[in-house]
């Protein structure tokens, strides 16, 4: 099982994602200018910043050469995880529904938040169960999940909302407390919290590991098997 972590100029949680993925499998960095995914089994678009994000977060990165390959990989059913800035990039690339708007506070927020697993058993939550609580930090300025009301209804009905901020833990004003959503096919998932920063009890929590473990299990059972 090999994870590929995309590295844009200015990425800063790329090594963190690499180290977290390495806890459950192999992991390599994928340079933004390359057209080669190096045969990875799953792609992680990491958090941090891409190209400075002086425009709208993720707006430039979606046009990076490597993103064409990521989009093709996703179309073919490959697992793609977008964390924070990666979620913003995937949403700019229309691989995920909705949009991420500036936080209600208009400020950067770092906070350890409680999440609820809305739907277990998916490629990204298979190692967890519906209703489970995860303690994972958020850190972002532009993380308020938005979609028009009918779209939100559709997303919920289709089971695309995988993670929600627990009551009282919504740090940014996301509609319906949505913290993470997947695409219709279920193989592309984006979340604002940083599971790669919750993989070691020493640094606060190991609850984020469940995302990486779920991905590994899914790939091993459905792709590599």
């Amino acid at each position, binding site marked *: 099982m090999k994870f590929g972590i995309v590295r844009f*100029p*200015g*990425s*800063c*949680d790329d*090594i*963190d994602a690499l*180290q*977290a993925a390495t806890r459950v499998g192999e992991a390599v960095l994928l340079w933004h200018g390359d057209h080669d995914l190096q045969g990875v089994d799953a792609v992680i678009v990491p958090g*941090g*910043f891409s*190209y*400075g*994000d*002086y425009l709208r977060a993720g707006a430039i990165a979606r046009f990076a050469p490597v993103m064409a390959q990521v989009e093709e990989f996703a179309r073919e059913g490959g697992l793609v995880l977008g964390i924070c800035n990666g979620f913003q990039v995937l949403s700019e690339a229309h691989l995920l529904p909705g949009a991420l708007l500036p936080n209600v506070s208009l*400020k*950067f*927020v*770092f*906070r350890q938040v409680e999440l609820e697993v809305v739907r277990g058993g998916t490629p990204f939550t298979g190692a967890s169960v519906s209703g489970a609580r995860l303690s994972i*930090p958020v*850190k972002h300025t532009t993380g308020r999940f938005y979609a028009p009301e009918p779209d939100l209804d559709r997303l919920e009905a289709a089971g695309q909302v995988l993670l929600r901020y627990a009551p009282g833990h919504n740090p940014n004003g996301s509609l319906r407390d949505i913290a993470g959503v997947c695409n219709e096919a279920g193989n592309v998932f984006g979340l604002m919290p*940083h599971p*790669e*920063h919750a993989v*070691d009890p*020493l*640094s*606060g929590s190991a609850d984020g590991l469940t995302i990486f473990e779920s991905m590994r299990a899914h790939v091993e059972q459905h792709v590599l098997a």
Partner: protein
Amino acid sequence: MSSSTSSLESRHRQLGLTDDEYARILDRLGRTPGDVELAMLSLMWSEHCGYKHSKRLLRRLPTEGPHLLLGPGENAGAVDVGGGLAVAFKVESHNHPSAVEPFQGAATGVGGILRDVFAVGARPIAVLDSLRFGEPSESARSRYLLERAVAGIGFYGNSIGVPTVGGEIYFESSYEANCLVNAMCLGLAPHERLIRSAAAGAGNVVVLLGALTGRDGIGGASVLASAELGDGDEAKRPSVQIGDPFTEKKLLECCLELLDRGLLVSLQDLGAAGLTSAVSEMAARGGVGITLDLCQIPLREPDMEPFEIMVSESQERMLCVARPECVGELLAVCEHWEVLATTIGCVTEGDSLSVLHRGSAVAEVPVSVLVDDCPLYDLEPSPAPSDLYDAPIAVLSGSEPPAEILLALLRSPNLASRRPVFEQYDPIVQSRTVRRPDEADAAVLMLPDGSAIAVSIDGNGRRVACDPRRGAAEAVYECAANLACVGAEPLGLTNCLNFGNPEKPHVAWQLVEAVEGLAEACESLGVPVVGGNVSLYNEAPSGPIFPTPVVGMVGKLPHASAAGRLGFARDGDAIALVGPFSPSLVGSELSKLRGEAPVGELPDADPRAIRVVHEAVRARIRAGSFRSAHDVAEGGVGCALAECCVAGGLGASVRLPRGIDAFAEAPGRAFIVSGPREALAG
């Protein structure tokens, strides 16, 4: 004399040089300096670059220690942390830019200190900030400065991916006109990647890396522009630089890769006084000359004057020296990281800094004149009058019941929770952070072998205003106490001396006394000063700021997993007050709330007893026999206990030792610890 010469003579005053200093320049050069030369000399001989009023004094600070790898004089100091790794660190001020434009001033303060650290080959792994503003309740401007400075720090640190792990904020009316923004950075490097800034090897090339050179941040020289060289409008441009963390992130990754590949002879950041300072320092430390061709330098604006190019403080630039045969690979690495790299000169034999522009020399100055001949002044100290600082507005009468006083202290600006501030900073990127803000008295960062480093930054100007010598020493003791609380042993410290005008005898006295206090405390704890910064002339017509030495200390602990916490951990644990503690209300937060001016003698400190208790707390935290430790600082034992309760989510029932006022202070000497009753008995 020609008319141009006489106008040049009056120009030296506009550039901040005295008549005596100008005479010294004429004497050393043996001729009249040209425009570019005078601009360069005025900057190199400024207080900021030349440390004219502080250099002699700073020699008093101890700079030797068993763990020291790089000492004062390099871009950042460094200590050995074991496992073949070094930690480089430094604190620096960006006070005046932040008072003019707090967001960019604070942001570029962070950007600058990061460059200092990766200039020695270390990857920046943590930032801390020490901030001072006027009273938020009295001043809308202070609230604005606070909000924007915090946003600027977060913008730069968060974007570049370096965690902001700690800091401190104080509010006092003496900082109303002169806010303080001090930023500290720590970096990590394998020993073999540490690099000095000394240029070497005649024939080696000088390469400029990073951003374009523009007219931003032309400091003292903007006066020159408006005075003689025409174009008054450009002199009125904001002199605060604009930060670009994205460019610096690429520059950082690029420089570290260049060093890992062994492609550089030396590396230097461009900070205050831009190219002038960087080239002078590199040449002086290497005992070589350097020739620059200004026509090679990529400019943001094509018509820049030579002096503007030489003094521009455009951000996100580095200067390196490389062997000619390495330049091809060097440029390829820069291209990969999308970093602009341009050969702009070469190293020469001899002692001359030569600057060429369109084929002719616009400056030809001995490096020794630029760097070594800067005059050094002795201070003329005289004790500060007791009415130097106004008494604050009283919010307590002093006769309130203790519970009311406790609540008043806990909601006072200097003691209230810093959560609204630190929630705007990313403290965890790079995955080393084991203790975040509010979890422990010092930030703790894990190293690859499972050990950890700890860092804290401290400095209470109110107490230094009362008693500069003891107040400054307390900053060192408090920093060391914070490290002890997480189980760390101090390895070295950096300091930033923020003071008023040193030419005034009472400020000179504060400075001399404070440096003496710092030196005594460092000697007694055996902690060397690895480097630092001096920020003088922090004065308004109403008077100087509180004398504010800020101390940043780095320590080491063997096991990250044993790092201490400040919050009470378990219901039923015993609580103890330990340490040589004879606190008083002089200089305390309570005295401030009662409207008392900062005067009086601070409690004496017994350095030996302090060292003993620090060692004891450290050992028991490491052994796990103390489950929490917190040093008793502002607000005394009462507030320290409240902080332990809040952090741990537990209450406490205590009886104070006889004779100890609940709110009296003596920072750095005593701790609130908790643990099993038998563990606390010893």
